[in-house]
Structures are given as C-alpha cells and as structure tokens.
C-alpha cells in the first residue's frame, strides 16, 4: 500500500552518474565517483556512511550549493548543471531548506530575524515576512522565543529556529546534514520528532547521519562508501533490500 502511494508521487530530484573531484595540490580526491538517485516528493531519506564517504558532498550537490564535476542533475525537471549562479541562488532560496549541524544562525539577530532571512532574499514585504516567520516559529514550538538571540537559546531551540528558517519559504525539500550531531540524544530525539511531523505533513526530507538510531526515523536509507552508493533500500536507483523488509522497519507502519 505504502509503496503504491510513494510510487505515484512525482519525481523531485533525479541525479545520474554524479561525480565530484577535488584538487588537493597535485592529487585528485574523488569525493563522489558516479552516484545516481531518484527522489520523489514526500520521501524521508537518511544518507549514511563512514566519515569521508561523500555524504556532505552529495548533500551540497543536491542542495545546489555545489556543481558536479560530471553527471546530470535535474531538479523538478530542470537541468541544474546548466544554471548560473543567480538561478542556483533562487533554487536554494525557494526550493531548498537547509538545516546544518552547527545551526548557522546569525548571532546578532533574534529568532524572528533569523527565520525572516530567506524571505528577505525572496523579496517578500516586511509585514508578510514577520507574520510568516512568527507562524513557522510557532509551528516548531518557539512561539514564546521570537525575540531571543541564538545565545539566549538552548541547542535544541537553536536547531528549531534553524528548522523554522528552512521551512519558512515553503521549500520542496529539506536537507539536513547531521542535524542532531551537536545535540544530546534526548534533544536529538525531539528534533527527530519534529522532522517526523514535518514528513507527515507532506514535506520531503533528506538527512545525513552517522547514527543508526537517527537513520531509523527515515523511510529509506542510502549508504555511501568511498563516493559510491553501497546500498539503497528505496524504490528507485539500485535498491538492494527488498521492499517488504524496508516497510517492516518503517516506524510509521510498525506502530
């Protein structure tokens, strides 16, 4: 049942044979060596793998922060590799919500101003900005922390502000690179519960994590090793695990 539901969703991201090389002096580092993935709307994917396997590199690629050395990337049917800087900025602004391990909030701005920032870049007027930022902060449970600066908030609250900021422009996809990496496990679970509720409300979420406990929350897991996909239990790409097994592990269907 769940499979059918997912299969009918439109394809949001399609990457094919993506490679990324870095020059380290004379040496070439192959961060990604040909990765292909299909991501549909309202998927919840965890990307796992050992340190240095290329998880962050892949995330940056998906988030249009970086361009691949070779390979094809289509976002919503548009060819990303052909886009210029401003178009990439526009995609990041409207279609993608980033959540960072280190929160990356502006230290001197209060929660409201931090959350407003993507709306500023989207050219939305101040009143609407305020209103929407306040509403999203309310949604992530920080309705009473609108005027707190980051240093007046706990780590979990900071990450909530960051998530609110990622959500405020109503993006097609949320990318989170180790969102719980700087949080204790209890706070991490709270953040994961927030992601879960976002997923249920129809958001598409990709998160990078080291921890199996965190990855467990996702509905699909992609393992990377040495810049290649080692396993993908999803519906597309080179899925290794049979679908049925995956669904059994799905916490949403388990309960």
């Amino acid at each position, binding site marked *: 049942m769940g499979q059918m539901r997912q299969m009918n969703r439109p394809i949001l991201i399609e990457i094919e044979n993506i490679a990324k090389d870095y020059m380290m002096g004379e040496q070439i580092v192959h961060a990604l060596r040909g990765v292909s993935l299909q991501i549909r709307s309202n998927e919840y994917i965890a990307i796992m793998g050992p340190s240095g396997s290329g998880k962050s590199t892949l995330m940056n690629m998906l988030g249009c*922060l970086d361009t691949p050395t070779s390979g094809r990337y289509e976002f919503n049917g548009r060819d990303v590799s052909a886009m210029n800087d*401003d178009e990439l900025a*526009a995609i990041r602004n409207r279609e993608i919500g980033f959540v960072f391990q280190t929160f*990356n909030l502006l230290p*001197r*701005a209060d929660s409201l101003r931090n959350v407003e920032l993507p709306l*500023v*870049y989207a050219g939305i*007027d101040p009143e609407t900005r305020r209103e929407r930022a306040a509403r999203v902060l309310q949604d992530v449970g920080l309705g009473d922390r609108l005027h707190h600066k980051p240093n007046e908030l706990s780590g979990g609250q900071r990450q909530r502000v960051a998530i609110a900021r990622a959500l405020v*422009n109503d993006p097609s996809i949320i990318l989170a690179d180790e969102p719980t990496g700087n949080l204790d496990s209890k706070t991490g679970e709270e953040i994961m519960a927030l992601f879960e509720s976002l997923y249920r409300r129809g958001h598409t979420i990709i998160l990078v994590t080291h921890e199996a406990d965190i990855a467990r929350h996702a509905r699909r897991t992609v393992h990377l090793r040495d810049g290649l996909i080692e396993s993908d239990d999803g519906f597309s790409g080179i899925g290794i695990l049979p679908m049925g097994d995956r669904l059994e592990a799905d916490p949403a269907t388990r309960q």
Partner: protein
Amino acid sequence: MKRFAYELSESWKIAAAQMRSNKTRSTLTALGVIIAIVAVTLMGTAIAGIQVGFDKSMAIFGDDVLYVSQWPWKPVDDWWNYRDRKKIKTEYAEPINRIISATPNSNLVVAVPTSSLLRSVKYADSEVSNVLIRGTVSDYIITSTFDFQEGRFFNELESRAGANVCVIGYDVADALFPSESPIDKSVLINGQPFKVIGVISRQGTFLGLFSLDSIVVMPLLAFQKYFSAKSDSDILVKVKDKTRLAEARDELTGIMRRVRGLAPEKKGDFSINEQQALKSTLDPIKNSIEIAGLFVTGLSLFVGAIGIMNITFVSVKERTREIGTRKALGARRRTILLQFLIESTALCLLGGFIGLTFAYAMCAGLGKAFPSFPIHFSVTLVIVSMTVSILTGLFSGFAPAWTASRLDPVAALRYE
C-alpha cells in the same frame, strides 16, 4: 526592485548591528575618515568664511569704482619704483572731472578726491584713537554704498565751504555716544570741534582684521585746513557701466596721463586699482589653504580608506561561515556584495557624521572666540562631506565585498 529595497534595508540593519557590537573597532577604523572630514570641513569653512567676509567688505568699496593711487593693490617686487612716484593730489579731481564732462559717451561718471589719516576723536571725557579721518567732497556719497543710521551726509554747500561738519562711523558713535544721539554734538579732532550731522550704519570688519566703522568723514577743505597735507590721497572714480570696467580703466589711464602731462613714451607713474585687484591678491591665500587642506584631507582619507578596507577584509574573513549560510539561504552574489559595500559605507558615514559634529563644534567654538571672524558652516559642506564619505566607503569596501561575493558557498560553509 522591491527585493532590492528589502535587501538594502536588511544590509543597513546588519551594518548597524555590526557597528554596535564592535563599537571600539568601528570608531578606531573610522578615525581616518573622521580626521579627513574635520579637515575638509574646517578648510571649507575657512575658505567660505574668507569669501563671505571678503564679499561683504568688498561691497563697501563698490564694484563700480576705480581708485587712482600711488601704490597698486597687490604685492610688488620692485617697491622702490613705486616709492618715488609723485603723490596723487586731491587737486587732480578737478581736471579729471573737466575732461570727463568734455568727453562724449564717457565711461566715467565723476571723480572724487579723498585724503585720509589716523587721529583720535574726543567727546566730553571719552576718546577713541586710531580713527580713520577722511576728507572728501559731497559726491563721495555716489561712490559709496553705506546707509545712514541717523542724519545725513554733508551737502555740496558744506563741502565747498569746508564747513566743520562730519559724519561718524558706527564704532565712533558707539564709543563716544553710548546713551545719546550724536547728531548736532561737537566732537574734537586735533582740538578742533566738528559738528556731527550723520551716523553711518554698521559696516562690519574688513576680513575680520580691522573695523570699517572706525571712521569720520568730513569736507576735504576742512580736512586740509586742520590736518597736515602729508596724508595719503586717492581719487575715486565712479564708472557708468561696471560690465565695461576695462574700457573705463583705459579711459581713466588716458585722462591721468594728460593730467600728469606724461609724454607718450613714458611709463605711467600712478596705479589704477579696483576691487577686483584686491580679490586677486586674496586668491593665493585661498589657494594655499585649499592645497594644504586638500593634502591633509587626501592623506587622511587615503589612510582611512585603507583602514576600512582592512577591517572589511577582516570582517569578511570572520564571517565566512555566515556568508556561506546566507548563500545557502538564497543570497545572490550581488546581495553579498551590497551587504559588505554597505558595511564599509556605513563605517565611513559614521566617520563622516562624527567628523562633521566635531567640525561643527569647532566652528561654533571659533565663532564664539572670535566673533568678528566670518565663520561660515554651510549645507554644501555637509553634502560634500557626506558624499566624500560615501565614495570612500564604496572605494574601500569594494575589494573585500567582491571577494565575499565570489566565495564558494561550500568552502565558506566549511570554513573554520
């Protein structure tokens, strides 16, 4: 367009927050600009002040009057050539006037002889010393621009009769008659009584150097009767059309040569001066103030600009991750460029504002200390200073802002 406006206001807010959190650093960085603006403002004020004072003083001389004198109104290198010139005599006025009226379409109106020296003026127990005593004829009023506070100038009758009457300047009236009207009172000059018939309204000072109100004007014949002939004399000649000053000058030169009976091959032994000539003696002073001011301003602006460029580079470095974050959230290159340009500009504007405040306070202080010196703090100066500040900000911010805008978002986000 709207988006640009929002980004602009956002950038201003960031810049303001940035300066607020780094108060000391910002102020120190802005120091160069502060000094530059103080320099430019004080220089501008000095020049404008001199100009205003000069124009005001010049107006008293009248810009349509030529002065026949022994000395030119400009510094000369060969002063010995002028020293031995024949004195200008008041008697020249008569032949000059005769020639003027005989010339059809003359550019000149009338020649007025004047003779002056410094004396004390007394009334009752009061005395003012170093008053300019000037003897002239009733036509003097035509060549002058002053008004009367009280009374009148002496008329032709009194002039021809050499009557013991006089017109006194504001300072003299003020010193001798603090609480009564001077009209019809007799003042003593060289022991001789002169009846006051008029008081000239206040003229102010000449460039703040000496008062133009410390003066007594009387009929030339009376002057010559009581004071030694060793006074300096000039002939004032009123010009019909001040736009044709050059022609008037040539005509007057010709007349003076005739009066002096100079052979055609002989050099002129008199000078014809005009207000304009004084102006040109002032220009070198103005120029040197300008050059000195420009040098100081340029130097401190340059130092200031380098300082601000440096601090903006530091700011870009410190906030590399912030730049990465902003890019991830959708900031375009030009947004980042704009942000840092505005930060450097805001710093310069802060400097400009502080500088202006200082300069204003200094001008006010100077004005209090030397009330006679014409201080002139103008709106133009404020605009110029602010423009200079903005340009400096844009100039010094450009390189760091450009670097920031070109940062690779991934590298910026990874930056430790």
